[in-house]
């Protein structure tokens, strides 16, 4: 399989993953699932880095993947902590119900 084909297919998969994640954030109302969807989007972006790194044969893509992994871990830590707090107030974790900051 040539590099161009790998790149094309790989990016297609990444885009599909990203789209699934985005749709997930948009349509799910449960905050836990929105968080999961964001993880999927992050992984899609990370996968695009890895594929691009493989296409040009450099390690930068994988370095970026590690960065994104760390960031995702941090984000989950903060996100889950917030979720725990919110679950006290909104037991079913309905994201739309947490709109008190609306103008």
């Amino acid at each position, binding site marked *: 399989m040539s590099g161009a084909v790998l790149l094309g297919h790989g990016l297609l998969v990444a885009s599909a993953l990203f789209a699934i994640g*985005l749709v997930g*954030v*948009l349509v799910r*109302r449960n905050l836990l699932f929105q968080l999961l969807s964001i993880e999927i989007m992050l992984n899609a972006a990370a996968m695009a880095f890895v594929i691009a790194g493989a296409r040009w044969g450099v390690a930068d893509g994988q370095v970026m993947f590690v960065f994104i992994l760390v960031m995702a871990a941090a984000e989950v830590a903060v996100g889950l902590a917030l979720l725990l707090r919110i679950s006290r107030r909104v037991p079913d974790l309905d*994201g739309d119900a947490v*709109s*008190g900051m609306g*103008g």
Partner: protein
Amino acid sequence: MGELLRSLPLWLVPTLPAAGFLVLALAGGRLPRRRAGTVGVGSVGLSAAVTLGIAAGFLDRPPEGGLRVETLWTWIDIGAFEIGFNLALDALSLVMIFVVTFVGFLIHLYSTEYMADDEAYSRFFAYMNLFVACMLMLVLADNLFLLYLGWEGVGLCSYLLIGFWYSDPANGAAARKAFIVTRVGDTAMAVALLLLFKHAGTLDIRQAMAWATASWPVGSGMAVAVALLLLGGAVGKSAQLPLQTWLPDAMAGPTPVSALIHAATMVTAGVYLIARTHAVFLLAPQAMTAVAIVGAATLLLAGCSALVQTDIKRVLAYSTISQIGYMFLGLGVGAWSAAVFHLMTHAFFKALLFLGAGAVILALHHEQDIFRMGGLRRRLPAVFWTFLAGAASLAALPLVTAGFFSKDLILWAAWGSAAGCRWLWAAGAFGALLTTVYSFRLVFVVFFGDEKGHVGHPPGPRIVVPLTVLAALSIVGGFVETPGWLGHVTWFTDLTGQTLPAVDWAVEDHHVEHLLQMVVAGITLVGVLAAWLLYVRRPALPAAIKASAAGAWLARFWLSGWGFDALYDRIVVRPFVACAARLRRDPIDRIPAVLAATAAAGNAALSRTQDGRIRSYVFGIGLGAVIAVAIVVLT
């Protein structure tokens, strides 16, 4: 010793009160009252001590050219517009700083007792110190820009202190009136400074005056314009016709303020300004005549008004206007030194009279109506004797008072100088009669007759000592300059002669001088006699005059200060207020209103998108990203 005194820095004089102001303004509320008073009095006292040292050094051996300049720093430097922060001391400013710091110190000392029960004790001393600092800046400035800084500074302090008891709206109104009326004059003065800068290219007083003398011929239009505009500034600050209306109302402030600002120092700043810029006035004989006529008219008008006032402080206020009229008369006939001499003696006796009036007011539980006083001679002997000394000096009782020598010098110049004429002398002489009658009316009504009020607060030492010192000065302060047949002391004229030109005499005949002195002395004695007759011997007589139709009308007319307030109300205030009321609904105001409404509508629309839901924000971000990518890809 002389070297040491001459090396005393000039900048200390205004800096000490300024430092006192800063301390009181920043920490005043937290200082104990006693310490606030110490700071307030001490800063001015130290300044007075430094001034005495500097004066001793100056008199011991005057600096070269009678002038000592101290260059501090460059204040503003924009192209050709360069203003230095420099102080200059010559004979004229020496007299002024002596009066300001010395009389100022006595009044501060007096205030510690007068204001003792006031809540805003430290605020009072902060304002007073700021005033002294600004006034010293005004008289020590070596350029007109710096002088203007001090000029506006004292105006601000005057405003703050007239409205000192601001919880009464009437006091606030009096303060605003003083500020706005003097602003009319200040604007004229600012225009004069701009004109001078445009033509001379400098605001340095000595350079600008030298330039004007060299470049403008006598009577040239520009010189007359500048002189008249400067006169406008002086008229506003010194409460002369037609801007005199603010001073009687300014009595709303505490009495020490009236003594310091509205009698002894600030209101004489106009006299100082004209004396300082005398070179321009010498180039404009028309403006000189205007100064003399303004002075003569003011002294007569204010003298008449003082005759019928019943508030003790308003009598003194009108007499201040009238006495400054004498100074203007002196300036107008070219008797510069005599005007400054009268300024000095007036500062002594008028500060004394105000402080004495304050002691009486305090003793009678803030009673100011003279017809509810009476018989205080026995109750308040110290106040009586010092007040008598002040009133005698104001009335210019011959030989024994300072006021006699200074007023005599002005009157003789009004007759005998090249710019003088008999009418000006006659106005001054008639004014002398009015002065005597109203000053002794005060003495007789307040201190003689039956006791009417209860004396509550006898004056303490901090009131009596300043009164005594000022009374002594009001008596002996005139012996620095005596007429030819009486020792012929010319010490004061010799001193100011280093800075101010001598009188241009047209009549040299000393017999005429002596005759006129006799006439004025006679007028004064007649005045005392008339006051005694009217207010002690036949108290029914003034009442009868007041009861007649013409007398009642005249009394009302003079009580209101010749109806100037009503006139200005009609021709200036009301049209202005009507104009402002109309402009409130200005159609032009709608244009900015449309802008504001658009912004408000836009805000409402955009704030609706902020619904607080994460999903819609994500949608917005996603849509934005898609659009951004589309723009990059498709273009």
